[in-house]
């Protein structure tokens, strides 16, 4: 139980940090920022890697979770990078 309290503590702190992080942003960067943040939410991949694979169902779930999270991570970063590359001053 105590470990959960600690985890919730981290959760609350991280939320406040996230709220403070972005205050002023030019509208040009709305889409890239959304896409970049979206790639970070692929962090669920780390959780999927640590899943147990006891039963067949759990095996399938873990496998699919890794596949979809990887799509999110790789696709997300690459697409963001492609967008931002175009903004570079030439």
């Amino acid at each position: 139980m105590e470990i959960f309290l600690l985890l919730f503590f981290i959760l609350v702190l991280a939320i406040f940090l996230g709220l403070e992080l972005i205050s002023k942003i030019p509208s040009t960067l709305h889409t890239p920022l959304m896409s970049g943040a979206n790639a970070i939410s692929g962090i669920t991949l780390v959780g999927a890697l640590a899943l147990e694979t006891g039963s067949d169902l759990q095996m399938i779930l873990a496998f699919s979770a890794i596949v979809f999270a990887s799509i999110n991570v790789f696709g997300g970063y690459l697409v963001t990078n492609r967008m931002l590359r175009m903004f570079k001053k030439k």
Partner: protein
Amino acid sequence: MDFIFLQELGYIVAAILFIFGLKMLSKEDTAARGNLVSSVGMLIAVLVTLIKVVDPYLILLAMIIGAGIGSLFALKVKMTSIPEMVALFNGFGGLSSFFLAWSQFINQSNVSFILILTYMTVFIGGVTFSGSLIAFFKLSEILKGSSNLLNNISRWFLVFICFFVLIAIGQVILSSAGLLAINFELIQITFIAFLIASLLAGLAFVVPIGGGDMPVVISLLNSLSGIAAALAGVLLSNTALIVAGCLVGASGLVLTLIMAKSMNRDLYNIFFVGYVSDSNSEEEVTGETKPILAEDTYLIMEAARSVLIVPGYGMAVAQAQHVVKELGDLLEENGCEVSYGIHPVAGRMPGHMNVLLAEANVSYDNLLEPKDVNPKMETIDVVVVIGANDVVNPSATEQPGSPIYGMPIIETHRAKTVIVLKRSMSSGFAGVQNPLFFKENTRMLFGDAKESIAKLVSEFKE
């Protein structure tokens, strides 16, 4: 040094990199590096997790499949379709959290608040997935139009699902408090129903929302996918998931509010009212449009001292950004002052036009926002509207009854001459008629934007 220590250390480093990455992403000159920094964070988080896993071969196989599909999509997709790609990737992240929570449910042998957490993760992950999928279909125009009946059904269905969610969670609370006999079979049935309900909730939530509001919806769903990851992190006692998930959840929410504000829409309106087409208050636009040929357009533009180009989704569809740039250069050679009026939500996503024009090498300094260009509108000789509609609709300032009333627009109707490039007379994404097309000083140049501009360019070269 044991591996758990190493792992936690890696997660802290990753979290710091994510924070810096996000911060850098919100400034123009550091954005590209910010994305790189955040991806290094991700790499570190994945590597330290891979130190000890159950079945390395299977995991690598799954990662390679995912990486292959993701990279292929990301690199092959056309620049114009990037918005729907972001929606799709986001949905997959939510789906992953959904599976994660499902797998954790199977592990649980007693009924406690952890079960409630599992339910919440499943719900948010499921809504993110199915909601993003609908957003993807709407943006790629596979799913078109809206019907009032369907919207009403969706709304009522959403209410029904909310009741079911309360009942399911109530069952867990009562069971864990000892007020209800613990019946595992029943809980399992409820859980399966809950899985389905959460997917349906995403559908019912996004289906009634109009296409014009999709960017805000995707931003909100992006925030939700972060929250789903954070909750999954609590389930798995994984700090990397918690911190990264919360960062995305919270910053995504801020971005959602900023975006809604730049469209002058409040969130309640977007999610629960939608664009109401109130036929009573909307004046019927009468009059005739005045078509013009490319040759005559050339004559007008050749005489112009200042030209403002206002691009919209039509330019994206026609892939006309390169010829637009060419036209701009020719006009400048002709001694004309050329600028571009970029509405923040022109296209299908904020910044969509900036990306396309940047691709065509248009200088940053020539891209003006509405607040900079509107005050000097009267001094501009010719405005060229390329496939933009709702963002130049004067109803937003002139007709209090209009569904888009109050939205900041580029007030092109106040310029001396407006030339509108358009494929047909169909209404814009918001489904609202545009009186601009019928104004005295407006000329319509019908046809594909790329072909029309190419014609102008060749006229200039002759």
